[in-house]
């Protein structure tokens, strides 16, 4: 029997962390995601599962706490919003370099700078293309509902450990703050110390006499070896491509499609209904993972539809990947409000008519 609750997206993530057998959460408050650490502190997960929760002195400290904990084989996690993620950039790069698994969430707000506390999707580039220094990628997954906020915590941890790489839930202020019904998954017990050691033979858990010492580092002063290491990371990112996830909504007979993720996908879904009521054959392709990106599906759709409109609350970031995917076969435009403003379904429908159908 399901365990149903009415929850905020941020609370669902916090509850899911406890249920996913998370060992440690380290975070620093920032709107619009402070509910995550507030919920955790109120729940006293150290009593429920033995999970450690610590309010760090900064996001810089948080991400480095993750580095330490992940390096010691533990399931660790932090959440933040845009400016905080910028502060974490160095640490994320170090974790990718040292091949450390962790789960991150960015509940995106409008920027640049201090910007606004209102929702936005303007951190796509930062999340999907890098953000920190060096050649690295994260597994990036974008929830469009409170249910997915909960479910993706589990997927995020699984991917992080499968690829020994940071995984990021790219959310936004809408999904983080809104309340919806959520079916909570059954708790997964935290691993015992022996299970951690068995699952992570590479981790710094204490050098027992039966093995060589373990070292967690991203450093290699020998360029040839460093090149080898970066090529090894590349192979991992290539292997990660098979994890791509997307959702087709009414694309079968569509002549035009929206491409949108997260809260924009929810808005586009409404616009699809409105367009269909007017007799326009519109569909929606919702990328669920942003890295890997559903390139093949977009290319396939490009031979079926006349045009695509990428809808995102930004000046146009994901649209670049949509254009790359369709290889110039069809027209791809971008529409989106910025600065914390949220486009309405009718604005999105208007944009499709003016920029794609009539344009």
């Amino acid at each position, binding site marked *: 029997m399901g365990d149903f609750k009415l929850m905020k997206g941020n609370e669902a993530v916090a509850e899911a962390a406890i249920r996913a057998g998370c060992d440690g959460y380290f975070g620093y408050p920032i709107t619009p995601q402070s509910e995550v650490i507030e919920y955790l502190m109120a729940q006293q997960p150290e009593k429920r599962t033995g999970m450690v929760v610590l309010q*760090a002195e900064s996001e810089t400290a948080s991400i480095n706490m*993750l580095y330490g904990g992940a390096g010691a084989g533990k399931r660790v996690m932090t959440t933040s919003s845009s400016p905080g993620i910028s502060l974490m950039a160095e640490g994320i790069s170090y974790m990718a370099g*040292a091949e450390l698994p962790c789960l991150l969430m960015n509940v995106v707000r409008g920027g640049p700078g201090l910007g606004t506390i209102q929702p936005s999707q303007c951190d796509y580039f930062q999340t999907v293309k890098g953000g920190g220094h060096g050649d690295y990628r994260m597994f990036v997954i974008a929830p469009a509902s409170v249910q997915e906020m909960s479910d993706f915590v589990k997927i995020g941890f699984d991917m992080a450990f499968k690829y020994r790489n940071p995984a990021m839930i790219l959310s936004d202020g809408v999904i983080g703050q809104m309340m919806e019904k959520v079916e909570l998954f059954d708790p997964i017990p935290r691993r015992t110390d022996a299970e951690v050691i068995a699952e992570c033979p590479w981790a710094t858990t*204490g050098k027992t006499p039966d093995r060589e010492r373990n070292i967690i580092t991203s450093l290699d002063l020998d360029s040839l070896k460093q090149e080898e290491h970066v090529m090894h990371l590349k192979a991992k990112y290539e292997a990660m491509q098979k994890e791509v996830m997307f959702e087709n909504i009414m694309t079968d007979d569509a002549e035009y499609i929206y491409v949108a993720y997260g809260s924009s996908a929810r808005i586009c879904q409404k616009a699809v209904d409105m367009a269909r009521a007017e007799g326009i054959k519109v569909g929606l392709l919702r990328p669920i993972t942003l890295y890997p990106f559903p390139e093949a599906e977009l290319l396939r759709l490009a031979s079926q539809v006349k045009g695509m409109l990428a809808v995102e609350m930004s000046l146009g970031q994901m649209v670049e990947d949509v254009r790359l995917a369709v290889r110039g076969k069809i027209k791809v435009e971008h529409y989106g409000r910025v600065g914390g403003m949220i486009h309405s379904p009718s604005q999105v429908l208007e944009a499709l008519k003016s920029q794609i159908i009539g344009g």
Partner: protein
Amino acid sequence: MADVTLDVWKDIITPENQVYRRTPVMTMKELSYCPGCGHGTAHRMLAEVIEEMGIQSETIGIAPVGCSVLAYEFLNFDMQQAAHGRAPALATAIKRLWPNRYVFTYQGDGDLAAIGTAETIHACNRGENIVIIFVNNGIYGMTGGQMAPTTLPGMKTSTSPYGREAILMGNPLRITELVAALPGTYYVSRHSVHKPGNVRKLKKAIRIAFENQKENKGVSFIEVVSNCNSGWKMTPVKSNEWMEENMFPFYPLGDIKVDGKLVREL
């Protein structure tokens, strides 16, 4: 090389006569430090304490960026290399997630007292149950001898080529006294490795620090005032003399806080 199988040696090479041997807690890797640098001796004392306490399999060390970033090449137990300044954050998480392991950081002065000031102060203030070993050579050794927060007034470095001028470049920071003032530190002590007697005192202090951790006492913070003959542009002998004459008056050796109580005015 003498052939140790020769009969003449057999009465000499006996356990009673042994005065020196390598510790298995250090690897066979040749140290990469400049000849005369204090880092190697500090490593060695740490390794000896870990050997004597029999905690090699329970120890997790952290060395951030600085000349000792390669400490993991020389220390024979599990180690993590941290971003510049962040070792206390790593240590915080590791110790909280593995409370039955011994966790220490090994940090330079640029690392601990400049870029990592926030992590240092907050780990100390929270009273994390860790050991911090702070090697203060008054300079950024690794990057080629730039001014550090600990650089003495008048001292020449590559970014204070005419000498550190306090009014323009700030005053040297006694961060050890600063952390001693925080309730989370239990043991704070300053040492050196330039003479055998001082080396022995450092070893004793490291032992106290790890024993404190065994009893969950909070932060044990040990400063090692050391030389950087390359950065200071002095011979090893000269750098040790200079250190005694200039560094020790500003960074006086000895205990500052013992059993959670200040034993010296800050």
